[in-house]
């Protein structure tokens, strides 16, 4: 073993010295006071990835994480947490000073929307592409834990390239920590995800676990694997937009609940949406000041249902007419359009609306519409939002595509959701309520509180033609039999005489009746038997 003097190993010596010098630059700022260092860190946190990356973010048509929060929250209401948190990765040069950003790649905290508390996180794409480090996950988990403790919603603004690859399993662990909290918070506080940039790989499961996923058109993407991987695995050529853009997820996959034009449009709409939601499962649905008379008659409803039972009309015309100020926040307006769901107010009180849409596929129930309706009903039930159901349903959609796709188990979801719901349930049968679909659509038998029929209602096992073909198979005088069937069954009486509908009402009085019922039902108390959790057919 050779011995060397210090001077004989210049290389090693130089290395040591330079490391010391470097350390002196980044960790020993003895020439600055603590106060100055705090200020410096704060300043660095506020600029995220720096001016160049901010400019690049803007150039993509996207706002920065902090700009987004400023728009989302009431002025001066944001209280930031963990501004000084930094990532803990020491591999691949990540430990270097210039690779550390105070706050890391997410901004977290709480604030107010129209005076009401909300916990928020906003991923910062300018810092490592918004990638999720252990620290990043830890920050999100912290606000989620607190949100559950105090009972306030969580809004996530997602804009992240994915896992922080340099951190390896720590990043994956971070995702799982968030997933777990998403699940724990589910049904406790409302959780909303707004996708404002890429969101790929495992990251997509957090939005998927939240109650609502909104997207920004043209600048946001959600997919498990990107176009490149798709190409190499399945040889499919597909663009990011086609694979996981806003249009795909709001019309084809049903992953996202709504899409907005741009960041500003999305955030302003989110503020509006937030006003419909209660803060937690322990809070009642909010009631806002209402200028629309609760007893307003809606004369247009008296003529909206066409005489021919095969002719379509727009269920949204009924919905808009009945609601406060015609304001309807529709959920999934472009997916499974044969059912309409969304939030609205009646005499200022938030309600959930479910309606069959005769304009699309005759308003029948199929796999997609059942799942869409079921998830919405369960959200309302979890968060004390009364459900108003408008029924015009000819039945479940027949055919091999539906049967092979499992319409039986998917249709069961909607049935299950309506049956287990204990919030006030008001049902209006506007026209057809045929077959099993009648039972499903918040019928009296599933504990509907108030069930109305319009004079145009037909509650029956099926339409006259089909029924007559079965009852009078092979007999002549089918037309006569059909007329008899129509006379007997194609009207609200069979249901009304049995008490399956509480009243037959003039359509123009629908708003008045519902407002009055909601007031009565506000104190409704109903519980389901104790169980660990129910077993909805998934």
């Amino acid at each position: 073993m050779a011995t060397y003097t210090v001077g004989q190993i210049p290389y090693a010596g130089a290395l040591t010295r330079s490391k010391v010098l470097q350390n002196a630059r980044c960790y020993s700022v003895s020439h600055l006071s603590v106060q100055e260092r705090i200020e410096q860190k704060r300043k660095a946190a506020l600029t995220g990835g720096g001016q160049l990356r901010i400019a690049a973010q803007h150039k993509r048509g996207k706002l920065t994480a902090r700009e987004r929060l400023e728009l989302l929250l009431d002025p001066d209401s944001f209280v930031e947490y963990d501004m000084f948190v930094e990532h803990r990765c020491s591999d691949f040069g990540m430990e270097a000073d210039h690779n550390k950003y105070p706050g890391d790649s997410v901004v977290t905290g709480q604030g107010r929307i129209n005076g009401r508390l909300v916990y928020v996180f906003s991923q910062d794409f300018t810092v490592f592409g918004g990638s999720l480090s252990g620290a990043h996950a830890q920050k999100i988990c912290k606000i989620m834990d607190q949100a559950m403790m105090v009972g306030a919603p969580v809004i996530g603004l997602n804009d992240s390239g994915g896992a922080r690859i340099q951190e390896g399993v720590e990043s994956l662990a971070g995702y799982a920590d968030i997933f777990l909290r998403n699940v724990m918070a589910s049904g406790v506080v409302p959780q909303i995800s707004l996708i404002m940039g890429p969101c790929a790989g495992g990251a997509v499961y957090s939005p998927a676990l939240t109650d609502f996923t909104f997207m920004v058109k043209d600048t946001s993407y959600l997919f498990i694997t990107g176009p490149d991987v798709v190409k190499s695995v399945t040889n499919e050529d597909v663009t990011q937009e086609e694979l996981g853009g806003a249009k795909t997820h709001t019309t084809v996959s049903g992953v996202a609940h709504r899409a907005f034009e741009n960041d500003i449009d999305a955030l302003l709409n989110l503020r509006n949406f937030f006003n419909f939601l209660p803060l937690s499962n322990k809070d009642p649905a909010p009631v806002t000041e209402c200028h629309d008379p609760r007893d307003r008659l809606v004369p247009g409803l008296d003529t909206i249902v066409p005489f021919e039972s095969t002719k379509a009309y727009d269920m949204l015309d009924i919905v808009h007419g009945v609601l406060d100020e015609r304001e309807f926040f529709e959920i999934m307006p472009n997916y499974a359009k044969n059912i309409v769901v969304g939030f609205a107010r009646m005499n200022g009180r938030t309600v959930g609306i479910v309606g069959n849409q005769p304009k699309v596929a005759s308003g029948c129930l199929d796999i997609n519409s059942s799942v869409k309706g079921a998830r919405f009903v369960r959200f309302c039930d979890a968060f004390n939002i009364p459900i108003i159901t408008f029924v015009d349903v000819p039945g479940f959609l027949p055919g091999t595509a539906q049967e092979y796709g499992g319409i039986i188990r998917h249709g069961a979801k909607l049935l299950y959701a309506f049956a287990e719901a204990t919030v006030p349930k008001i049902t209006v049968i506007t026209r057809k309520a045929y077959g099993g679909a009648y039972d499903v659509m918040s019928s009296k038998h599933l504990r509907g509180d108030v069930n109305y029929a319009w004079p145009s209602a037909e509650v029956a096992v099926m339409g006259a033609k089909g029924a007559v073909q079965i009852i009078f198979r092979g007999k002549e005088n089918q037309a006569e039999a059909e007329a008899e069937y129509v006379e007997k069954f194609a009207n609200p009486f069979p249901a009304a005489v049995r008490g399956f509908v509480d009243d037959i009402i003039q359509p123009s009085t629908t708003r008045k009746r519902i407002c009055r019922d909601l007031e009565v039902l506000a104190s409704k108390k109903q519980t389901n038997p104790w169980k660990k959790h129910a077993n909805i057919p998934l």
Partner: protein
Amino acid sequence: MAAYRSAAGFQRVLHAVKTFDKILIANRGEIACRVIKTCKKMGIKTVAVHSDVDSSAVHVKMADEAVCVGPAPTNKSYLNMDAIMNAIKQTGAQAVHPGYGFLSENKEFAKRLAAEGVSFIGPDTHAIQAMGDKIESKLIAKAAKVNTIPGYDGVVKDAEEAVKIAGEIGYPVMIKASAGGGGKGMRIAWNDEETREGFRFSSQEAASSFGDDRLLIEKFIDNPRHIEIQVLADKHGNALWLNERECSIQRRNQKVVEEAPSTFLDPDTRRAMGEQAVSLAKAVKYSSAGTVEFLVDSKKNFYFLEMNTRLQVEHPITECITGLDLVQQMIRIAMGYKLQHKQSDIPINGWAIESRVYAEDPYKSFGLPSIGRLSQYQEPLDLHNVRVDSGIEEGSDISIYYDPMISKLVTYGKTREEALKKMEEALDNYVIRGVTHNIPLLREIIVHPRFVSGDISTKFLPEVYPDGFKGHMLTAGERRELLATAAALYVAAQLRSQKFLGDLRVSVVPAESRQWELCVELDKGLHMLGVSRSGNNYTVEIDGEKVEVSGEWNLASALLPLTINGKHRTLQCLLRTAAGEITLQYLGTSFKLRVLSKLAASLSKHMPEKVPEDTSSILRSPMPGSVVAVSVKPGDNVAEGQEICVIEAMKMQNSMTAAKAAKVKSVHCKAGDTVGEGDLLVELE
């Protein structure tokens, strides 16, 4: 005398003279309702007829009985004589009021009624026939010493003959359907080429509208006024003229705004026209209400145009200034009573204006039909001296099958100025949602300096709006009022969205904000505004100028009655979204604004521009209708302005032309197709 000036005027019980027990109204919409109203006052039972799509229409609900006479297309229902004759038999109606249009001037129908011993509330067959034929009517008028337009009195055989005759009379000439009326089958030609084209279009339109493609040609009087005289004649040879109606404001030969009396006529001209009208009525042994239309040139020379042997659409303004109920008079005359009045009894009391409110888009050729469901509908009936004749209500459908008229809005005043002011107010307070309507145009016409001064002609619209109607042009002061209103409305809505009732978990807003800095966008212009509030009063500062806006700020109401800088204004809020978009109807026109906080506005510059669709190579249907003909096929080369296809809507044929010279890429329609507004017709390369 003002008995028929308002709906309330109808409350007066009409003289209980014995007339009919039951009348069938062979019409629909507002005119059916109008006739039923008078019948009710006279104690007469009414029968409505309707097509299947009209089964819950207002006129059906108003009538004592209703009979369905067929499916939606008019030739299968309202023009279906067999079905209507059956309805008469079935209900035992003693008389038929035909309204206007449909069978009102159909001599065949009048004959069949006569054969069944049912009274026709209108003139007898002879007068209908004589006046219904433009060629014959002109001859009779000449003989009765009525001034007529130079022209060719025979039927024109073909396009070439049309060109020859036109050459003899001298251009410009008018080609019109012999059986026509209402501007249908009418074309003006300034040269041989246009004569040929006009001949082709007019004969097609005449054939489809009247089932009679005979055309005639006459000298076209350039820049005339259209003034008509209402006459009333009984079966005993007595006739009266009930003064004139000025109907010069027209688009495509269809009336838009009418008034009575006319600003243009002096008493002598009025009397001369009235007397000629009466002498024509007497010459054809006319009975019932009728209208003699004249063209009046700038030197007050007047020429007989045609006689309409029916109740006119615009009859309410005559009722307003004379105090007569024309429907009542028609019913009495049909029963055989003599006229109740002498010529000296007929007054001109005050001034009446009528605006025809149509479901159509005034920004396209002054009005292309639009259809839809009236999701909200509120007539300005709480205003005094306003009469609205309509046959629809909230929830009604405006369909492609029938005339797109929503209502006739009539205002009355002691003076023209008063009536016009009232019209402004009535239009501002008229709530129509769900269909595009022409209130923007109506509201502009009635305040236009040329209209206000009475300087009008049938060319008013093309002269005043040579590049098409573009909506109200805001003055700087009006722009400020509009911006201020949008800002105040935005703040009122923002404040309300912070009000949660009975919720203890809402943070107490630290001393409710009273100052706002906003950015309002209008027509791509950005305006920074300062808003301060005290109660319901907002002070908005725009470029150093202050605007005071106050009102009740009822955010659910369609109407927004406000006081802006001390002046009363009624605006309407058509749209208000969470993203700050606000659409306001102000002075009749709707304006799209966007209100953003200062912060959101400053960040807006980063938002990506969305590229709108290139429309020059795409031809879309400008209105709902049916395709009559497609003149191109894929691969054809078309010149700019070349006809690509013809769309028929509301019986009007519209030629769709290429916006640029190009090759046809694809054709998405064929003759006979029904198309909706905005449907893709043809794509060019």
